[in-house]
């Protein structure tokens, strides 16, 4: 599933977090600016030759031919598509209605394709590499975002996602090395993340310390602890402590043989399959189960939950610990799922980007996962464009992930509503 498909699949749900539906000129204006940028690029920097999109490796069972398009003509055509979508959005807004939900993702896809076609003229874009790399970068973000969604839905701001990821990464590497079992390492990551989160929960729920402050302190604490542990133990004695076996890639039968989708989504490690399951489970639990209803009630109006006999504090501690467990699993991906060893500060701010994904996704698990995938995709887009030789300066390319974040939040999503009680301690009835 591509990010676009995922975004489209998010049927509107009546949980009060559907975002503002009011007709606003925000979306059409953002689209107009991007369309103009594309048109200017095509006009001022016309490209010669063709752009190829390689869709599969020659060894694939179902090999797709490489798609080749004339660069300039395709850029112009895609710009026209963007202009049409922009006009459609503008017309809807003028009629006093919100632009159709599929418009923004469709526009985004057209923009990315136009950018790729234009920038990679005369070269070949490895589509599987682009998407696969995007997923790889997204995995910790998605786990972190799920940890964030769970925690905030129950009313505790989880600033400590970064710490939970880092703890998961470090502990899983060590445990997997010592036991020789990467799967045991995974379990250890879950426990480590849950422990960090439990500290957050106990201090903020039991002792009413400001949630954000506890979160920040925890991040610093975990960074310091793992950094110290790394320099004093892991680095000097890497063979005994920091050389975990990487998780094997498992190709799913049939699904793994599909063109494009197969290698991107279904020839992955168990961590990635766990991610699919976690996203689905978080979604289903929050909106379809008794526990989910109670979690949302506690995060929105803890007094109301208390008066119907729900134990607000216990629920919060439990769910925050669970959120940390999820984020910890994401941390394991850094070590067991990709590089194979723990490095100092290796999460590099992924926890904060996950937090941004929670907000961009409007505290909805599926939308937050989509936002995390978007961030991963844009980061990797920048890598791939660098490799195929884009005419844009690399400094400009480095801005791309942040530019997309700003555009997505300000231009499309607009004002989102956090769970009402998120960030506030519950002291009980007066």
């Amino acid at each position, binding site marked *: 599933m591509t990010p676009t498909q995922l975004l489209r699949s998010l049927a509107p749900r*009546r*949980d*009060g*977090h559907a975002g*503002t539906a*009011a007709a606003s000129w925000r979306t059409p204006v953002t689209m107009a600016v991007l369309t103009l940028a594309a048109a200017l690029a095509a006009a001022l920097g016309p490209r010669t030759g063709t752009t190829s999109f390689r869709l599969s490796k020659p060894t694939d069972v179902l090999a797709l031919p490489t798609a080749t398009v004339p660069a300039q003509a395709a850029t112009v055509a895609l710009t026209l598509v963007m202009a049409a979508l922009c006009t459609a959005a503008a017309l809807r807004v003028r009629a006093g209605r919100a632009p159709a939900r599929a418009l923004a993702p469709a526009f985004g896809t057209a923009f990315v394709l136009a950018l790729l076609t234009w920038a990679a003229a005369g070269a070949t874009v490895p589509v599987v590499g682009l998407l696969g790399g995007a997923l790889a970068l997204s995995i910790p973000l998605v786990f972190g975002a799920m940890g964030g969604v769970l925690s905030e839905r129950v009313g505790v701001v989880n600033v400590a996602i970064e710490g939970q990821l880092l703890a998961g990464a470090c502990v899983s590497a060590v445990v997997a090395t010592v036991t020789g079992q990467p799967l045991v390492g995974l379990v250890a990551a879950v426990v480590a993340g849950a422990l960090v989160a439990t500290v957050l929960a106990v201090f903020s729920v039991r002792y009413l310390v400001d949630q954000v402050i506890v979160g920040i302190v925890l991040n610093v604490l975990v960074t310091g602890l793992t950094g110290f542990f790394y320099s004093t133990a892991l680095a000097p004695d890497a063979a005994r402590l920091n050389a975990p076996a990487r998780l094997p890639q498992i190709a799913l039968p049939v699904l793994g043989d599909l063109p494009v989708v197969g290698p991107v989504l279904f020839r992955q490690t168990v961590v990635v399959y766990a991610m699919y399951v976690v996203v689905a489970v978080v979604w289903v639990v929050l909106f*379809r*189960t*008794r*526990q*989910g*209803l*109670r979690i*949302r*009630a506690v995060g*929105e*109006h803890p*007094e*109301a*939950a*208390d*008066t*119907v*006999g*729900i*134990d607000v504090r216990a629920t919060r501690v439990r769910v925050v610990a669970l959120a940390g467990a999820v984020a910890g699993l994401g941390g394991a991906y850094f070590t067991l799922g990709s590089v194979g060893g723990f490095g100092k500060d290796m999460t590099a701010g992924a926890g904060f980007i996950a937090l941004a994904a929670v907000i961009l996704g409007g505290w909805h698990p599926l939308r937050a996962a989509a936002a995390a995938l978007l961030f991963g995709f844009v980061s990797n887009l920048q890598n791939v464009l660098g490799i195929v030789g884009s005419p844009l300066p690399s400094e400009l390319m480095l801005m791309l992930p942040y530019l997309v974040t700003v555009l997505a939040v300000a231009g499309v999503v607009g004002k989102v509503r956090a769970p*009402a009680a998120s960030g506030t301690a519950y002291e009980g*009835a007066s």
Partner: protein
Amino acid sequence: MKLELRGITKRFGTLVANDAIDLVVEPGQIHCLLGENGAGKSTLMNVLYGLLRADAGQILLDGAPQHFDGPGDAMRAGIGMVHQHFMLVPVLTVAENVVLGDEDVRGPGWLDMRTARRRVREISERFGFDLDPDALVGDLPVGVQQRVEIVKALARDARVLVLDEPTAVLTPQETDELMATMRRLADAGTALVFITHKLREVREVADRITVIRHGRVAGAAEPGTTTRELARLMVGRDVTLTVDRPPARPRGDGLRVDGLTVRDASGRALVDDVTLQVRGGEVLGIAGVQGNGQTELVEAITGLRAPSAGTVRLGDDDLTRAGVRAVLAAGVGHVPEDRTHDGLVGEFSIAENLVLDRSFGPPFVRRGEVRRAHLAEFARQRVDEFDVRTSSIRTQVRRLSGGNQQKVVIARELARPLRLLVAAQPTRGVDVGSIEFIHRRIVETRDAGTPVVVVSTEIDEVLGLADRIAVMYRGRVVGVVPAGTSREVLGLMMAGTPIEETDAA
């Protein structure tokens, strides 16, 4: 089910909120618990509902002693409560709110919303409520939200139902409907505890009355007891319930509000093309159910909120978008509706709060320095004049009772020569004794020739003070009527009926 409270005592530190309270509520009866704010009614009910633990005493249901560790226990025992501030989650649907904590599930924990919806429909049909189980609670008017609360309690099979100040947020018509519902519930065998401080409602609906004062049972009364007698029981002395006031002698231009419109961030009109005039020496009452634009209107007049259209003029001064400081300088006194939030700094002393609006310069500040002696003298004099009950002017304001806090606000606002007084909910959460005092000061201000605007959601207050009454509904002024208008007509107008259609015209 018969509810019996025996010797319930609850202390908060040195304060005894409930002192050996006895109460018996029979099934099929509406038992009114009457008392002033702070008398201990809500504490008693929170003890009953398991939210607070009593220091002494017993709760018995049908003669069997109960022990509640939390609201869950109380609910399972058959006690339901409609809280003054609704305990509903606005982003959840009616059905979700009704079943929360007592959900129907299939299998390991899947929500069974179909059963939940059926439960909501069944109960609301029984009482003619017409609730949509799938509506988001936040989208519903307060009157309907209250029904959701009642359905929520009934869905848990409550046989003792406590209603804590349920009429505070309702129009008179909604109040009548609520009372009819209460009667139907009582007829069906439910024991009801109706907490209120409104004497009229007590007389209308109560089967038995227990009056609570200073945490003790001050007495029991029969339903036929006069309001004067009930007030005496409640306050502990004779009180005048109506303000003596000579007829108004309007003079001068006073305040003119023309086509005033205030919009929220999304462009919705909160105050919609309001035009009003208040002349010197008259009180304009603004009536309406809470949340119909009164707050925003007051904020626009006092400079706290910029209107998107229209003008505010005081005499020859244009105060539209003038800013708070300019509005203060023009001689506008403002008693805000929420004194703890907007009217006072709780951590500051009485003296400091008395000059909050005069921190810019003389007479209390000279060259950036507070003149303490001068301030203390002024504060002592104001505290005396306004009968603020306190041991010292250095007492933190948050330690005062609601009535005394409000007197501090009024004392401050009336300390300057005023050209306009805007008083929003001047007696909300204030004891009856202080109400009397505050009302008298407002009338005195009027008689001194100042235009006065009184915003109140209490019809009695508006009727008692106003020379003319403007009724607001959804940001608009439905009509401006003379002081003698009947409460029925006002009630209809508060629900949005234009004056021409109320049969009064």
